[in-house]
């Protein structure tokens, strides 16, 4: 099998373009993975990868995934914040791939937050 070349992206881009018309705009759910030094050392990259994987499996288009820095609770990393529509953001702590799956199924897809993994509801403010 020959290795992928960057030109092979052309076909994929074409596919995406064709599908784009039926996509919903905006982004109903926003996921922020905390990627500070503490987060990365605790496994934030694996958590982010797991979220991307779930987005891919469920083939949903209205989820925005992004990263932020340390939230000041390094001992609870890896952490992520999920914002579902107009609901208050929920901060999840000590994440792993199994927890991500559950959070994705319940919160991201259905809007029901997973209380047992949550630290708090709300968002830190940096002055």
């Amino acid at each position, binding site marked *: 099998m020959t*290795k*992928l*070349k*960057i*030109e*092979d*992206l*052309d076909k*994929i*881009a074409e*596919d*995406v*373009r064709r599908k*784009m018309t039926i996509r919903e705009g905006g982004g109903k759910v926003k996921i922020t*993975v905390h*990627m*500070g*030094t*503490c987060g*990365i*050392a605790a496994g934030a*990259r694996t958590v*982010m*990868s797991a979220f*991307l994987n779930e*987005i*891919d499996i469920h083939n949903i288009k209205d989820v925005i*995934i*992004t*990263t932020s*820095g*340390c*939230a*000041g609770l*390094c001992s609870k990393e890896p952490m992520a914040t999920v914002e579902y529509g107009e609901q208050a953001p929920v901060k999840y702590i000590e994440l792993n791939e199994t927890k991500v799956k559950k959070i994705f199924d319940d919160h991201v897809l259905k809007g029901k937050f997973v209380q047992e993994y949550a630290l708090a509801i709300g968002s*830190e403010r*940096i*002055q």
Partner: protein
Amino acid sequence: MEDLSLHILDIAENSINAGAKNIEIAIIEDSSKDLLTIEIKDDGKGMDADTIANVTNPFFTTRTTRRVGLGLAFLEEAANSTGGKLRVESELTTGTKVIAEFQLSHIDRKPVGNIADTIVMILAGNPEINLRYYQENNASKFLFDTNDVKKITNEIKINSIEILKFIRQYLEENVNKINK
């Protein structure tokens, strides 16, 4: 940090927080000199002399959420433990360059790890960044540039899941084999 790719992700996050639009990452493996060099260069806001002097001091940080900053200190430790060193060059408003040198064959040299994952995660969270990744060893050279991707994807965001999947697979096939 388990491997060098995680250090790279960490330093690149610094670049992004410093407002960088362009980030260049290079991994140069020179077995004739028994040297592994990692460079992360950005066009972020840069640092003044006082900040550079304190940059690997864990108890110095520009952040206000907590009073320690460990990213560069960890990387320096990783380099020092192989007999290598860390250098930071920076100029206010121009950008910062972090250079970490490792003895390639040193028993304590961490493995390079999963570069594909690191690059994909940077792009997933920060699609507006232009990223160049270059690697070189005695046998081969490889360059990945998001500008080449964006020329093909045009209006499609680089962090669309299909594009990220392609980039990951492309990098896994072309990158991870070279560095152990």
